[in-house]
């Protein structure tokens, strides 16, 4: 970019070619008044406050829409311009309710600032009033729309269209009756608004206000969101030890200020009355309050006893993808070095174990190959098995931008008509469980039509012939009856992916949660290698990780077979290294996985289970089985912030703290290590997980002592090569992406450039296998599970936010109209859904979002827990259960249990 110089009011200002006059001025610290300029939105030029005079140009152009050119001479703060601005501002004032003193935006109102800058005391103009006065739209539970205060700057409508790709609101009407409206002037809750709050944050006045933000914050803390793996930067506004406002961190490279409804409005759980504030010990069948000394003593005693009596491997621990890197590191260190077992795993087993297994085999590293930002510049994006707008809403913005701003081709392969299909040029509705057949057929087309990248295959990969042979017969016509996708659509998808300059694959649990999960991932890796779409910018195979720190929990060794940094426990050299570093005797046998731990508990092999921040009583498949296992175990300790379904079964419950009450780091889905910062003090006696672990280890004769999590990170860097260069000072504001092997390494934006982690990329033949349990005459429908935008995981956090519950009440089951009609089920009717493993009640949502023959449920709701129905058959390599396919039957229920609510 060329540097150019312009002159504003006689002062030389240097700027970059392509920036507007307003941007140049603001960057140089020169104030040009403005109302409708909002960073990240396209120039709009509506408020006319930023008008200037430019030599050689007629009239008074707006500086926000006019590009700066070299040598431009601009007059800004001069009488003739200010006179026009002042009159324009007077018009706004004459049209604006003068209720500043009681207004929520008082002191934080750009119109107020502007009036004061222009010196407007009173307006000589007629008061302008709307007749009838517009009523406040209070329909949305999170924000109020008060059109009487609207200055029509268009920030909200543009944010909704340009940034979010939602378009719930638009300017309607003409002249003085112009107004921001949802379709048909209906209340905004009836529109397709997703309550992201982007409009609220960008409103310069009080036309859009967050309902709960009635108290202005006295301090802000920059931290990282607790919900999904995207890892949005948050700015927590606090006052009197409470979170009073949540904004997106505008400097975050991940989200640049944008958030989704959960991050923006869903943090009420932090101050929930239900938070655990004291340790609990089960006495006479009841959980009773206890003090820390007693509780920790009890836990230590129990763990010691089991270890002594049954051996270390009778103990198991579930670490947490919601806890920090440091806490995960300590948890597995405590189990391995303190207790002597590798029986440590966490819920990544249930979401992306097949990713880790598959991508490590193919590429040598089990993480997202590329970065979130790169998605926007891909020429073709294949989304398969990811309901991106609901599960990773802010990341979905990049994909929408790729399509809308840069003309990328989007292919969505998903059985359900998810929102992302609205942006796609092709929607493929493959039958759940047929992904390998679909991908193999795409490989077949690309090979047959010679669209493959031979140079890449020859120089960078091995074993291609095995795949060529494997898919030789997997023609689109072969795949059509298996997948239910027209052969021609498979061809179109294959061509789109293979012929684009840069193609990127985005997937999530629709790929991984199958008994063929690892094969699914390997097949996608084959697709990328076949076309050379890996190891360069805006390409790659990109698994979207679910939990905020599932990447970090894996990275830091909360897995039974690896130490931090994916270093194998059964590799003698590595084993020795860790024994030395941790000054302990370590087991060299890989431990049990989550699913195996539950089975071992049921069979009596595991006697003691320590759960940190997980809720297997809702998140694991075949819940009745899980319940039996946890009830039969000798000792169950749960460390959490709420009394979860699992904690209710525990012998000891230890109160931990939320992300807002501690320091640490999370690693997001693009391998970016980011800071979590303490904003408020924890409630009652609750303690940070890392402090609890240290205290417990002390009592177990394996002292772990740290003053601050940064010291833990320093230790992590010492023993974990991929984190070798990471430290708190370096993480700074924008984080650091691993691999980052040393203190001078800048971090890695995308993986496998020039060479794969494992040397050559390895093709793996993946012959098609059917799902473990297919529908039959007894259970004729296929159940697939997933998530809703408005809830998180087992709803422990989101159910504490009233608005989320209001928009998405329990317990919907989505069913195709024809399937519903056959069973005599109408919209909103209570139904009974049964599988071979159990029965639940739910409310029918009759919709074509579900394909014919398939019903969909989210697993959030304990009131009608979908995982009561799901199959615990597992992938043979990754041991991930098949959440995405099981056979069910559905019928109208005789009565409606109160807890499932109503649609």
């Amino acid at each position, binding site marked *: 970019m060329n540097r150019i110089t312009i002159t504003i009011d006689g002062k030389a200002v240097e700027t970059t070619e392509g920036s507007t006059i307003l941007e140049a001025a603001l960057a140089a610290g020169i104030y040009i008044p403005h109302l409708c300029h909002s960073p990240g939105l396209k120039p709009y030029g509506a408020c006319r406050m930023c008008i200037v005079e430019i030599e050689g140009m007629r009239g008074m152009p707006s500086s926000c829409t006019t590009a700066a050119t070299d040598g431009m001479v601009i007059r800004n703060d001069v009488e003739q311009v200010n*006179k026009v601005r002042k009159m324009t501002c007077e018009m706004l004032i004459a049209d604006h309710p003068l209720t500043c003193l009681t207004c929520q935006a008082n002191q934080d109102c750009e119109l107020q600032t502007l009036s004061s800058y222009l010196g407007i005391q009173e307006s000589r103009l007629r008061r302008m009033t709307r007749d009838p006065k517009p009523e406040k739209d209070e329909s949305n539970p999170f924000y109020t729309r008060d059109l009487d205060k609207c200055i029509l700057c268009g920030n909200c409508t543009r944010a909704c269209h340009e940034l979010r790709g939602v378009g719930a609101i638009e*300017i309607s009407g003409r002249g003085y009756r*112009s107004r921001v409206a949802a379709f048909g002037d209906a209340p905004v809750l009836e529109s397709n608004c997703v309550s992201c709050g982007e409009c609220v944050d960008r409103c310069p006045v009080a036309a859009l206000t967050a309902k709960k933000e009635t108290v202005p914050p006295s301090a802000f803390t920059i931290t990282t969101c607790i919900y999904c793996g995207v890892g949005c930067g948050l700015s927590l506004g606090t006052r009197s030890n409470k979170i009073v406002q949540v904004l997106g961190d505008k400097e975050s490279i991940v989200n640049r200020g944008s958030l989704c409804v959960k991050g923006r409005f869903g943090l009420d759980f932090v101050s929930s009355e239900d938070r655990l504030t004291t340790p609990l010990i089960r006495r006479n069948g009841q959980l009773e309050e206890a003090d820390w000394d007693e509780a920790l003593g009890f836990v230590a005693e129990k763990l010691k006893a089991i270890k002594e009596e049954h051996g270390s491997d009778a103990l198991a621990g579930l670490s947490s993808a919601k806890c920090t890197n440091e806490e995960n590191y300590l948890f597995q260190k405590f189990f391995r070095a303190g207790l002597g077992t590798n029986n440590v795993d966490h819920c990544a087993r249930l979401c992306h174990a097949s990713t880790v297994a598959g991508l490590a085999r193919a590429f040598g590293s089990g993480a997202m190959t590329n970065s979130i930002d790169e998605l926007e510049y891909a020429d073709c994006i294949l989304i398969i098995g990811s309901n991106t707008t609901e599960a990773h809403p802010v990341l979905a913005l990049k994909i929408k931008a790729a399509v809308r701003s840069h003309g990328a081709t989007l292919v969505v392969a998903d059985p359900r008509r998810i929102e992302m299909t609205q942006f796609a040029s092709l929607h493929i509705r493959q039958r759940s469980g047929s992904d390998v057949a679909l991908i193999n057929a795409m490989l077949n087309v690309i090979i047959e039509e010679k669209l493959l990248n031979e140079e890449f295959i020859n120089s960078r990969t091995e074993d291609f012939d095995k795949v060529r042979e494997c898919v030789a017969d997997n023609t689109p016509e072969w795949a059509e009856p298996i997948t239910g996708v027209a052969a021609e659509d498979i061809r179109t998808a294959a061509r789109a992916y293979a012929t684009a300059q840069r193609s990127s694959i985005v997937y999530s649990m629709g790929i991984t949660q199958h008994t063929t999960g690892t094969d699914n991932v390997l097949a996608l890796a084959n697709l990328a290698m076949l076309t050379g779409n890996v190891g360069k910018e805006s390409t790659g195979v990109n698994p979207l990780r679910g939990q905020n720190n599932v990447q970090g929990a894996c990275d830091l060794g909360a897995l039974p077979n690896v130490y931090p940094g994916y270093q194998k426990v059964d590799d003698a050299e590595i084993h020795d290294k860790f024994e030395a570093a941790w000054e302990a005797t370590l087991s060299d046998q890989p431990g049990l996985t989550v699913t195996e731990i539950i089975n071992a508990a049921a069979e009596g092999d595991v006697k003691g289970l320590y759960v940190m921040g997980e809720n297997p009583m809702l998140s694991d498949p075949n819940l009745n089985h899980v319940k039996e296992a946890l009830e039969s175990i000798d000792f169950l300790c749960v460390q959490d912030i709420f009394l979860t379904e699992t904690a209710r079964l525990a012998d000891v419950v230890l109160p931990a703290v939320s992300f807002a009450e501690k320091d640490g780091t999370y690693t997001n889905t693009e391998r970016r290590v980011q800071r979590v910062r303490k904003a408020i003090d924890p409630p009652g006696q609750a303690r940070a997980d890392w402090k609890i672990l240290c205290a417990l280890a002390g009592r177990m004769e394996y002292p772990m002592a740290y003053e601050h999590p940064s010291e833990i990170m320093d230790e992590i860097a010492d023993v974990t090569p991929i984190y070798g260069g990471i430290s708190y000072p370096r993480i700074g504001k924008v984080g650091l992406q691993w691999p980052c092997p040393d203190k001078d390494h800048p971090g890695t934006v995308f993986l496998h450039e020039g060479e794969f982690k494992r040397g050559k990329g390895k093709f793996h033949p993946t012959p098609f296998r059917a799902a473990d349990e297919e529908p039959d005459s007894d259970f004729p429908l296929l159940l697939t599970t997933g998530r809703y935008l408005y809830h998180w995981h087992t709803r422990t956090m989101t159910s504490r936010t009233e608005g989320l519950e209001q928009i998405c009440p329990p317990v919907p089951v989505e069913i195709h109209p024809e399937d519903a009609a056959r069973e005599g089920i109408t919209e909103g009717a209570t139904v009974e859904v049964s599988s071979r493993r159990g029965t639940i009640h739910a409310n029918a949502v009759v919709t074509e979002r579900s394909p014919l023959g398939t019903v969909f449920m989210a697993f959030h709701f304990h009131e009608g827990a979908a995982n009561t129905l799901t199959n615990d058959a597992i992938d043979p390599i990754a041991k991930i259960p098949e959440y995405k396919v099981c056979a069910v039957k559905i019928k109208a229920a005789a009565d409606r249990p109160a807890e499932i609510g109503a649609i």
Partner: protein
Amino acid sequence: MNFEDIRKRALQEWQEFQDPGKARILIGTGTCGRAAGADQVLEVIQKTIVEQDIEATVSETGCIGLCYAEPLVELQKPNGPRVLYGNLTEESIGPLLTDFFSGDDLNTSMALATTSAVSADDIPPLNELPMLKPQVRVVLKNCGVIDPENIDHYIASGGYAGLDKALQMEPEQIIAEVKASGLRGRGGAGFSTGTKWEFCRRAESDIKYMICNADEGDPGAFMDRSVIESDPHAVLEGLIIAAIAIGAEQGYIYVRAEYPLAIQRLETAMEQARQNDLLGDHILGSDLNFHLQIKKGAGAFVCGEETALLASIEGTRGMPRSRPPFPAQSGLYGKPTNINNVETLANVPVILREGSDQFSAQGTEKSRGTKTFALAGKVTRTGLVEVPLGISVRDIVFGIGGGIPGGKEFKAVQTGGPSGGCIPAELLDTPVDYEKLAEAGAIMGSGGLVVMDEDTCMVEIARYFVNFTQEESCGKCVPCRLGTHQMLQILQDITSGGGSLDDIALLEEIGHSVRLGSLCGLGQTAPNPVLTTIRYFRDEYEAHINDSTCPAGTCERLLSYSILPDNCVGCGACIRACPVEAITGEKKEPHLLGQALCIKCGACFDVCKFDAVLRE
């Protein structure tokens, strides 16, 4: 297809049309004709010739511009004179046909003019009519003369020869020719057409667009509609030449949905042009392609503004955006785009065909060529006229238009519709060209000319136009959305007796800010009617404010009504008409109007048969 072959076929067709070897009946069925009853007249014609066994061809044509005399019918017996009759009705047309064809009676008193070489006694030739004599018809040459749905008629009168010529030229040569002609945009702003094309030609891009702006929206303006309805191929030919010049292969005609006949005639014309290889791939066998589509606007005035028009074509809300970047750099879908108005494009074929010299022979130094105007309001002869630029306002209003009817005084003429300004009597000799009109505070605009007489209140006129722009403001920018509303509120106060003297200065100040501060042309010109009426008719504003009177006697809230006892016969009609029971009185006794109750609706004034209600 070879153009020479096409032309030969066309000439033959035209010859047959001119001389069908039997009687010939031509009727104007443009929207103006239809509004005056042309459809019904045509129906009677069809019926009559069958009943009376008159052997005649009946053809429809467009608008000849004599709107005051619609419906117009032209009759001719084989080898006889062609006579034009106006103001026909369902009742009068039958006897006229009988007289003309069977009775050899020309009905001279009903005839307007002759249009043939063969003269007829006592009937003046068409071009000698006072309305037509001062006109120079270039754009309107074919209007009302040819059948607009017959491409051969257009070709026979020289049509598509300009395109044929352009195909032999380099794009730069075409642009040079148009630049040399001095043609300026007829949509109102008056930017050099050739220069505009040049910008677009020079913009580098794989795709470019050529757009015809037919979103004519000024109240009282109908030039573009008439041209499209009467001579659609002229617009198409201009569009195709422009597309070749700038290098566009895709084009749109943005036309308001309220012009159904224009749309239908454009569709017909486009289809005919395609069949004759004049539109589509390989135009006249060349390597050049141009594909054209009609896009219907939904009636938003602002969509005539070119950036709003682009937004509308793109399917978003029709709101303007700031320029630069200009459409020539970044227009439709971000690609270089050229947008010209209907009349501008209709001039282009003539320039190519007859050369820029011929074109620029008309007009003044900076304003070359002719301009069409829709003459309306308080003027004797309303209609569509075309005059050489530089002609005086007086010549148009009094020469062509025949002055003010009913012996009333001329007060002002509004040019350029709601974006324009009014020109008072003392400036009647102002030459009609872009610069001179701007000096007078008005604008050339697209061509609406609304004449006002002594009964027109200028404050009310300002209020009327500001109300229009306020209603049509897209709402995007503050000065236009709120500034016009503010001016409207003040003007409403003044016209209803609630203004103060400070308001005049305030109106000027707001007007100044709206003009400088607004985003697009709509807002920038919206204050013109207010500022020019204050400039030339300040006394009327002052009379409203100081004396609570409306000099023109039209501002109802400023009028007072009273009953003249000498004239009142006590019939009770006013008592019954009064909606608020303000009038009392016994039968056959003079009635009394209670001022406190009167709402000044004028109902009593309207019903009184004895001039007993005084309005002042």
